[in-house]
């Protein structure tokens, strides 16, 4: 046998990078994976943009007092959160779980906690890209958000990302990948269209009362209040925070790595 290659010698001691470095690295890697995935790009950026164009060009949301784009843009941002945090991350995680990627990564220094934090970082990075692109296109189409509400909007975006990431992981960690795929796509359409994300909840009887408690409605209403009127929608924030806590607890309780 030839001599042992020096670079293959076992390390003499533990040599994991610090947690922050590991999470940053995982976040970068996950973001790269998401951005090079055509389907996810379609769901995260193209479809929300189509929703924006649709509402603007059809004049569907125009009212005597409000321009359609000012109502539509915050809703489309809410839809973008659902796309990347819920549908995109949910489907990706479900398949990673099936193929043992989660199990493998949890045996590396990254560990389960680092993996989750890396995913969260990736969702926030993607969200930044989405807000930049969708917001930029919106501004070009004539969107004039109320600048007084920008920080409230950011707060809602982050809470929404946390809530929908937890919900996406909850589904991914408890059902088969095919079921996750179907469920998160279906809910993306339903919550987007009827659940108060893109449009305010339609005023049809008891549905409008119930749907106000959906995380999608809380996120959409919060963003509309912030960007349309520059105000904080307190009840919506409380509802969204409640969902964030419940969904996180449920995901921690029921998520299965394999």
């Amino acid at each position, binding site marked *: *046998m*030839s001599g*042992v*290659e020096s*670079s*293959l*010698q*076992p*390390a*003499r*001691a*533990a*040599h*994991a*990078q610090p*947690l922050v*470095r*590991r999470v940053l*690295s*995982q976040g970068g*890697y996950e973001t*790269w*994976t998401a951005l*090079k*995935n055509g389907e996810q790009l379609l769901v995260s950026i193209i479809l929300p943009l189509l929703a924006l164009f649709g509402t603007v060009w059809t004049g569907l949301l125009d009212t005597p007092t409000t321009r359609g784009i000012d109502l539509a843009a915050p809703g489309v941002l809410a839809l973008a959160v659902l796309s990347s945090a819920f549908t995109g991350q949910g489907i990706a995680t479900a*398949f*990673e779980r099936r*193929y*043992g*990627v989660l*199990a*493998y*990564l*949890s*045996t*590396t*220094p*990254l*560990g389960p906690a*680092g993996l989750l934090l890396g995913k969260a970082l990736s969702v926030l990075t993607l969200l930044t890209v989405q807000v930049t692109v969708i917001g930029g296109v919106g501004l070009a189409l004539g969107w004039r958000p109320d600048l007084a509400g920008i920080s409230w909007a950011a707060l809602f975006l982050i809470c929404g990302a946390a809530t929908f990431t937890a919900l996406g992981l909850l589904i991914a960690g408890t059902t088969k990948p095919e079921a996750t795929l179907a469920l998160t796509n279906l809910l993306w359409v339903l919550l987007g269209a009827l659940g108060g994300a893109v449009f305010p909840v339609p005023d049809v009887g008891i549905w409008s009362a119930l749907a106000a408690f959906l995380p999608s409605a809380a996120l959409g209403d919060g963003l509309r209040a912030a960007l349309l009127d520059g105000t904080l929608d307190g009840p919506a924030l409380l509802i969204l925070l409640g969902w964030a806590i419940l969904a996180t607890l449920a995901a921690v309780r029921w998520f299965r*790595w*394999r």
Partner: protein
Amino acid sequence: MPADPAVTGHLHAQGPAPTGDVQLQLTDVHHSVRSRGSTVEILRGVELTARAGQVTALLGPNGAGKTTTLMVAQGLERPTSGTVRLLDQDPWRAGADLRSRVGVMLQDGGMPLAATPERLLRHVCTLYRDPVDMPRLMERLGIDEFARRDIRRLSGGQRQRVSLAAALAGRPQVIFLDEPSAGLDPVSRQLVFELIRELRASGMAIILTTHLLDDAQRLADHVVLLRQGRVVRRGTVSELTSTSEAPALHFRVDRAVPSVALDEVPAGLTVQAEPGHSSAGGGTPTGSSYVVHGAQRPSDLEALAAWWTRHDLMPTDLHLARRSLEDVFLEVTP
């Protein structure tokens, strides 16, 4: 277990752990899972020791508990009872420091299908302060030939090599390889085996599972034979295959030995159809195989040759062999 003194001396100079240090210890490990409302006991008191600078092979039929033993040892499963010590720590509570000293290659690879080997392996290396020279390792394993293709487009054997490289990214002191040779062509298999031998010489503790007895025969310092969640045999390959008896003589003839001939085998010898071959007189497409026990002196061979002459049997293949690992395996497999 005694190791080659030349190799050991070399290791004391360079390796992190002297050969023979216990790196993994499982004591009376039981593990049950709930399946469709009933509890299935997968491991029933497994005892296992793996040492630095040695290859420990877990052998056993499908469902014997090999993969579950690894998962418990890696900290991916928490055993129902018993103790697991990996580098003197409890792997179930492992932090990043312990995980930086342990490499894992899962049975199905655990590689993300949408990534390229190059991007994935580069990423895995960033988790360690002092990672392996990955470009060099990729070259050695032939990964550089398909490094920029999505993993989903790779063959099973190619993926296998990627997950081996990922397991080695942190230059671990202990490595777990679940079926490392599955799906490999002969050339890749040779590459992987050479690498494993080199890792052993560098002082790494290597724990692998296989159901290919040839793998164990070629690689393992220590073999642990599992059946139904229990260790039924353990030892070095030569310990497991040696017996006090004389070696068996195997021969093959191109037709079945007539039963009249079997009735008059030389005194002191027994001739049986080879176990593990098809039923009718050990018949295979290329002839019939037999095993002769009891040949201890040259005169026994002379008597055997006379018996062949009498019955006009000309062997097409003839060899003396100790018990193979396969014999041991078949003995313990119902």
